[in-house]
């Protein structure tokens, strides 16, 4: 339990008949900039709301800064900043009044930092929150969550619907304070996340498919292109770590999700024999996300067929790091 700003154990949440989270096990290391990614409906927002004690968990537990999340209220929230895309702010307040109102709640509120953030985000203090654009409102919300040096910053889809300039400003504002805080951010904007996240977790169907450092993740995924003398046939059995296997004339392409030069080469030789050329291309986080999402969808479709075993069942106990889901299945 040490050195983890956030830790969940078998966290589950059921909304009537919908199972939003299933035995979620997630660890956000202290000081990390953790990007929680996943398709719509994966359970990212639900997980964050449980962490912030907005929802209660149906089963399992979560710790935030060493405190059981179900006890997170009142003073305990003074070291946590939370910004959500659809958060209802007191929009009748002017920006300056909003900051002034929040100030007494936080013993660590830094007036100088507040001024700096106002300047950095170019916030109009005399305008009402309801009169601000979405981007400006998001910047005001972020500034109000940074001005007291929170130990943990939780951002739920902060970039949705924002123009690139505002995104850059938000990210810059975050990065400037990243050293003193742990940041958990859920986002679809993988290109932006890739630029500053230190860790990434992929959530799908309420479960963590992988959770690891971004550098190790990027190292682990490769686009593999095999060139043959003659057009080969697609193998009937391929390693589970190979995703999106496809053939085009004398070329076969796939994504290796557990890339190790020696191991991958051995697998290629054992499946295809000799090849004329082998190319390994590093992938962007977006490409990795898409490949994972597609694979997840295929698994779900397979699982929905009566004769096949449920993917969810086979990978239900996946650990929160590495390709445990896939490994468990293979």
């Amino acid at each position: 339990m040490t050195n983890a700003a956030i830790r969940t154990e078998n966290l589950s949440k059921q909304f009537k008949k919908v199972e939003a989270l299933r035995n979620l096990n997630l660890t956000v290391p202290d000081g990390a900039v953790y990007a929680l990614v996943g398709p719509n409906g994966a359970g990212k927002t639900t997980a964050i709301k449980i962490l912030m004690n907005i929802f209660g968990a149906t089963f399992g537990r979560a710790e935030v800064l060493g405190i059981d999340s179900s006890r997170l209220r009142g003073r305990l929230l003074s070291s946590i900043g939370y910004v959500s895309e659809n958060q209802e702010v007191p929009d009748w307040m002017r920006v300056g009044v909003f900051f002034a109102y929040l100030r007494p709640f936080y013993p660590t509120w830094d007036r100088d930092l507040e001024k700096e953030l106002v300047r950095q985000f170019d916030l109009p203090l005399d305008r009402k929150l309801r009169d601000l654009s979405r981007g400006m409102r998001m910047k005001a919300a972020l500034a109000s969550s940074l001005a007291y040096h929170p130990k943990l910053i939780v951002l739920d889809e902060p970039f949705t619907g924002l123009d690139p300039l505002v995104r850059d400003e938000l990210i810059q504002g975050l990065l400037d304070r990243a050293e003193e805080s742990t940041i958990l951010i859920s986002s679809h904007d993988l290109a932006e996340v890739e630029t500053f996240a230190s860790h990434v977790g992929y959530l799908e169907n309420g479960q963590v498919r992988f959770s690891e450092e971004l550098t190790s993740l990027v190292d682990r995924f490769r686009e593999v292109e095999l060139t043959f003398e003659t057009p080969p046939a697609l193998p009937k059995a391929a390693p589970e770590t190979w995703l999106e296997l496809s053939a085009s004339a004398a070329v076969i392409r796939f994504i290796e999700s557990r890339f190790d030069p020696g191991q991958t080469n051995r697998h290629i030789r054992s499946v295809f024999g000799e090849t004329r050329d082998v190319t390994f291309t590093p992938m962007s986080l977006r490409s990795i996300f898409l490949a994972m999402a597609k694979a997840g969808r295929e698994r779900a479709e397979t699982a929905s067929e009566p004769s096949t075993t449920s993917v969810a069942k086979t990978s239900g106990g996946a650990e929160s790091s590495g390709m445990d889901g896939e490994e468990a299945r293979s």
Partner: protein
Amino acid sequence: MNLIIHIFLKDARHLWREIAVSFALVATYGGNVPYSWAHPGVRGVELSFAGAFFGAQFWARLLVVLVPLAWAFTVIRVIQSESLVGDRQFWVTRPYDWRQLLAAKLLFILVFVNLPMFVLDLFLLSKADFTPLRYLAGLFWMQLLMTIILLLPMAALAAVTATVVQLLLTLLVIVLYLVGSSALEQHLPASSFTSTDPLPTILMIATPFAVIALQYARRRTAWARLLILGLMGALVLISVAAPYRTLIHRQYPPPKIGEQSPFQLGLGQNPGLWQRGSIPDPKEAGIVLPLTISRADPDSILIMKGSRVELDGPNGEHWDAGWISMNSINLLPGENLFSVNFAMPRSLYDRLIDSPIELRVTLAFAYFQDANRRKFVVPNGTFSLPEAGLCSAMPIEPPTQPGFTPMISCLAPMHRPTSLLLTLKLAESTCPLPQGQPALPLDSVGRGWIESSESPAEFGISPVSQFELAPFTFSNVPSYPDGAVRPLTGICPGTPLTLSNPHMVGDTQFTQALAGFHLPDSQKSIPTGLSSGTRPGFGERPSRLSCAPIQCESCSGRPVPILKKGNTIRFWPRGELGPGYRECVRPRHRQVPRGASVDRAGTAPPCVRSGGGYRSAASFPIADAISGSRPAARSACRSGCRVPRRPGSGRRDARTAWVRKGSPVGRLRPQIARAAVYETGPVRAE
């Protein structure tokens, strides 16, 4: 504490419009009330909420409703400004301590609702020449009542709803629930005069507290809503499952064995028939049982709460009507006649119709004994009347309004007198007799009784209660020879009165067997449909007069009295139905339920020999409501004469024809459906 003030100031800044409107309404109300005191004919604002809409100055009375509404709205807005429902509010992830948040909201309500009310009350008391500091306990009691009855439930509802619209929809559901509950209670007649307290009261007070605490401490909206639903279900369950017979026995204990009862029941004359609703139920027969009660102390007052009738037939038949509410009929000294109504199975009725039966009548009632009787001569101008407040004998505006009686108008601090009985020998009145009125005999007496709860204050927003002292019931009063509408004599400066303070001896029940009773014959007894007179929602009766006999001119030519005596005339506010419209209400001891038909005990209806046509009209609820009025009686009579009853279709046909032909009933239907109204007709004192 700093954060409490901080949140409070934020709310005050946010809700300045609501606060301003509420202050403006309070100020307007505060300015209006002393005006209404100075002009008692206007009677701008009353303490009671009920009936506030029926007044000469509609907007002024509206304030009685608007001020609490503004307070309720302010409470709702302040609670919902940090909404406890939903998962998107910014404040739930901020370091708000729920205790501080709740304290800030309470502080806001205290400052912007309770404090203005307190200041208003102090102002009104001092304006009415009372010393406010003497009534602090009562003022705090008023605050407590307002908080528990209005503000607390509103705060609880605001705590489980996110927006005002949601709250209004919730209120709509609650209103529907209340309508359903009251409909259910009509099937539980004993529930209206038996208290199942303290459980329902405890639940109704505890649930809002629990809801608010649960929401602020845990924000468990589903649980909080379940609590409210649970309360609603529990109240229904309590009213349905309560052991009413046991409760009545406990609340109205019978005399101890061997103890001589100070009451004696006797059968009145001419029992009649009535029917429930507009369509007769072929399986039941409604009986109106006129009774007289004599008491050892002729000056005692009885408030009849409930009755129970048991029948024993000659062949061992036994039937029990169960407890039935009597709607708190007051029998003042000198009033002995009342009726008990019950519906029995038609089959039993048919078996017993020809045989003398034994009746066992049990009455549950409150019993007041007269005390502290003293003479009082009404002075000129304003005078202090102990236990009543500051009073003055003044004419009611407009003085020419027919039917109004000169009376004493009083302002009382905190509540009306707990119990004050006024007895006036009409012949001793110093009020000038109307022109043409013969001198009143020495034994003609008028009485008026005012009672209220013994609590430190009544529920309301004004600590000053305005009321009139006047004779409302009369005995030994002769009729005007010409049947014209004229006011009786009343109370004027110099009029000697007898005042007393009847005190409650207790609730009790009393059973008496009455042998040799014959059930009324439905073939001989003619239903007419005099309705029960008291309907909620109308202002206090300013006077009580008698309706003169109305003759049915288009039937056999035989004059038939419609109303005999003792009916109450209630004046409708001008502007509602136009001047001159009045409501004719039977006195309490002569009231029968809506739809009842009474023969000579109450009314000898017209068209007795018209083949039953009038029955159909009488069974029509509107006809019930207006029976006794001259135009309606004539209309009913015409209808009855023209549309004799045909087997199998008489009732509906007659009713339809009657309404379709544009009878006064048909034309006045919308108004009459609301209350018994009739055009000014010949009214005279007996």
